[in-house]
């Protein structure tokens, strides 16, 4: 009878040993790393939460101040709009006076105005002159001074005794 004998010793490792081996060499690293991360998160979260609560309280208080100050802001905006409107009106008033003064000073004596229309920063002058040269000089003066952006001489007509003309002036430039 032949008997097989295995001469290589093969230690038999049971489950308990394998488990402890795993816990000792593998699982402890996992647990340590996880614990380090959880502790890091815990302390940071604690710090963040504290800061969040402080900020929320601070913002709530500031919002209260802003809410209480609303009438003050409205009053300020009301007067701000008023000042804006005043500035605009003042500017328009000065512009009109300047334009009017400029025209009064520069219309030659030979020219007789029959109609003058002002509307929104533009003038339309209608008139006549016995001397066409005075109309030409007036037109050239307007062009040379360049106080109006658009200068248009239209309807220059010869009548029996005089020359009719219409000049339109737009956009006053200071």
């Amino acid at each position, binding site marked *: 009878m032949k008997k097989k004998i295995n001469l290589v010793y093969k230690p038999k490792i049971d489950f308990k040993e394998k488990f402890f081996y795993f816990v000792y060499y593998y699982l402890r690293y996992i647990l340590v790393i996880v614990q380090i*991360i959880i502790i890091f*998160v815990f302390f940071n979260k604690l710090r963040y939460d504290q800061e969040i609560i402080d900020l929320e309280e601070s913002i709530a208080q500031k919002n209260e101040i802003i809410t209480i100050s609303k009438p003050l802001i409205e009053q*300020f905006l*009301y007067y701000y709009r*008023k000042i804006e409107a005043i500035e605009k009106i003042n500017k*328009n008033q000065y512009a009109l006076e300047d334009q009017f*003064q400029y025209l009064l000073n520069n219309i030659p004596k030979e020219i007789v105005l029959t109609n*003058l229309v002002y*509307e929104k920063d533009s003038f339309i002058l209608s008139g006549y002159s016995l001397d066409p040269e005075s109309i030409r000089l007036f037109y050239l003066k307007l062009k040379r001074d360049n106080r109006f952006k658009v200068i248009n001489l239209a309807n220059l007509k010869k009548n029996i005794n005089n020359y009719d003309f219409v000049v339109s002036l737009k956009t006053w430039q200071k």
Partner: protein
Amino acid sequence: MSRQFEPKNIFQILLKKNYLYLILFFLISTFFIYFIIYPNLKQLILAGRKLDELRNINKQSDLAINKIITIQSNIERLRNDFNFLDKLIFKKPAINNFLSDIESSLLKNNLKLDKLFINDVDLIGKSNQEAPTLVILKGEASGSFGDFYRFIQEIHRQTRLKEFEKFEIAKENESTEASSLKIKFELKTNYL
């Protein structure tokens, strides 16, 4: 007969080559990462974002409060001037004041008033507080060119602000005296 090892199952192979521990290590690690580390870090990141937002809001609130303090100090400083601003642009239409201003200016500058009318004025005059409300007055007068220029200046010097929307100066007719002109004008004023 060969003496090759014949594995019975996968665990045997793994156990033989010590892979079982590695596989278990990664499986457990994955479990911890997915169910413990990920939610924790997620919470921390969200808290961090919230903190950033709150810091930003806090900064803006600080700026707003600084502006309010500036506004308050300016209002206190300029409180006496507000009455003057209210005289420049009235709170109500105050048509009677508007008319009397124009009438007095016309008389003062030798202009003869022919017509004066106002359309579409809300006499209760509840302004919308957002933008100035206009009151437009149309008038017709007669006088000289120089008188009308002085009338414009007079209107512009008055405390309640007014501006000319439109005007037309024309010769009345050939028969009348040279200085007499027909003047049509539209004057506007605001209330807020």
